[in-house]
């Protein structure tokens, strides 16, 4: 198993275990960001930005042990 830390703000904090804005997840090796989102219960289309180890990433990005993932809501005006 690999361990990935996930940080998120605002409404994403409702997701499984993320109420303080940060959580650690145990995943199968070979997991991708999309698997994390599914696991957490994120709804398709609600994520606007994915950052993996400080770099912009996407749903297909592969995760490794010790990775830091940040997720942000979509926001387009207001």
């Amino acid at each position, binding site marked *: 198993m690999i361990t990935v830390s996930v940080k998120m703000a605002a*409404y994403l904090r409702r997701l499984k275990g993320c109420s303080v804005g940060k959580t650690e997840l145990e995943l199968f090796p070979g997991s991708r960001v999309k698997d994390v989102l599914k696991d957490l219960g994120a709804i*398709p289309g609600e994520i*606007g930005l994915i950052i993996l180890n400080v770099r912009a990433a996407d749903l297909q990005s592969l995760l490794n042990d010790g990775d830091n993932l940040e997720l942000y*809501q979509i*926001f*387009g*005006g*207001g």
Partner: protein
Amino acid sequence: MSYGYNGKILKINLTKKKYEIETPSDLFYRRYMGGRAFAAYYLLKELRPGVDPLSPDNILIFASSVLTGAPAPGIPRFTVAAKSPMTGGFGESEAGGSWGPQLKRSGFDAVIIKGKAAKPVYLYINDGEVKIKDAGHLWGQPVAMVETLLKEELNNPKIKVVTIGIGGEKQVRYACILNEASSANGRNGFGAVMGSKNLKAIAVSGTSSVNLFDKEAVKEVSKWVASIYRDNPISASLNEYGTPAAIAGLQASGMLPTDNFSSGAFSGYDKIDGDTLKKKYVGKKPCYACPIACKKQVRIDDERFSVDSVYGSPEYETLASFGSNLGISDLNVIIKANELSNKYGIDTISMGVTIAFARECFINGLLSKEDTDGIDFTFVKPTDLLKVIEKVAHRDGFGNLLAEGCLRLARKLGNNSEDLAVQVKGLELPMHDPRAKFIVALGYAVAVAGPDHMSIPHDVFYETQENINNNGLDSLSFYEPITDPAKKVKAAVYGQTLWSLYNVLGVCDFAYQPRGIISFDKLVKLVKGITGFNTNMFDLMEVGRRAINLARMFNVREGFTIKDDKLPAMAYGPIKGGRLKGAKIDKKQFAESLQEYYQLMGWNPETGVPHASTLKALDIEWILELINK
């Protein structure tokens, strides 16, 4: 029998103290539908070109739509329009709250105001009866007080009131109009136009409900929204956080306007973000018939000052324009600044960006304490911002210069300071960096009423297959993600047309796709259910397209050319900090995209003027006859 609309437009002449009622044909309502289109229609027909926007010759229009007042979510909005004191062109600004629906109930679809009253007045429109009443006792009153006083004076607790504050009375160029103390027709300075007409407020009430063609269809849409809005994260986030939820994501993306747009990241962002602000929420302020209730009320505990919660919580634009864009991370000061802005009736975007301009000039030595009435414009002491807002509202000292907006101030200062003025056509940019969002950049340059972040859906909605599949854009013929700026013109054109439709219909961008949860199918169902019009998205997009072209022709007639469709100097210099450090607009790419935009719109790419054939296809070739007279 008409459904959705009254068939009556109220025309008031404040100089003559007279009014008349126009009864346009059903075809008029079918073709123009409301909001932006009504406004552009009447401004083209009845306003002669070249007038001073702050003179009695300007015409001020309040327009609802064929949908307003129906008991359905996300359609409470109405448009205020006139020749803009900021741009000198077509000016419009929409607001939510409850005034629009109540105007409908009072018996009228729109109010058109000409001339100037000899002394301050207010209008009272109640079940078809129209009175022009003395407002001497209201002049000088803060925004929230006006509604309270009028309810008492008219012995009518059901009235809804649009009002100006001291800002509008003093004709601060970007003064605004508010209803319910926190729903603002914010941009373009219509508060100043109202003030220039000696018009303090318009109170409306009525007992007629909107005639619905198919009650069941309307109910179905309402029921669906009620069942889903708490679970769908797009609406649920607005319900819980409002737009302040955006701060963290924009910071991480490197597009949070900081220090007069010089950077895209702010070190103090976590002190002003959604999670921090949410702790101070004490209530929600829903618009008429909408459960999403994105607006909030706040309470603070601060020994330096108190805040009247009636004026609402700052939303994203205000958080950024008084916060990161001024280098201020003192959240209570931003909350107080928001309260003052609403109390005095002043646009938080234009005021914030004008102050940010002055701050950058101050830091660069173009302004000194001598010029700024002794105030340190670095805002190292954040409460100094509150002093500045008081001065702007009262046009006091340096506030009198700030009250003119950043372009006019820059022209006074000279010294190439215009390069630091972040504006298009004289109107300040909102809190979305064009260097980070190419579609928004195009939108800023060509938007009919000056740079408007809500005139065009943002780039992010087109950026991933997931987004497109979930926000309805696939049904507007976007089948795959778009990330290359060179491919964004179609998105700019179609998106702008959609949100033009929303401005015509008084539809809230937060409630309907792509930025909201209600689909286009449901929108069509609602329009049909309310009005009985045999319509669909094709027809409705044509309604949106017609409105853009009406407004564009107004601007053509006022002398606007393609030279005015441009970006501020800042767009061509790099973002100086954050994830997008170094990003800038490519001048050549932008110029090419602009040409492509004109082509796609059916406009002459050399002049930016709509082709006669474009106007003809939209049944508005009458404009050419009008202009050529």
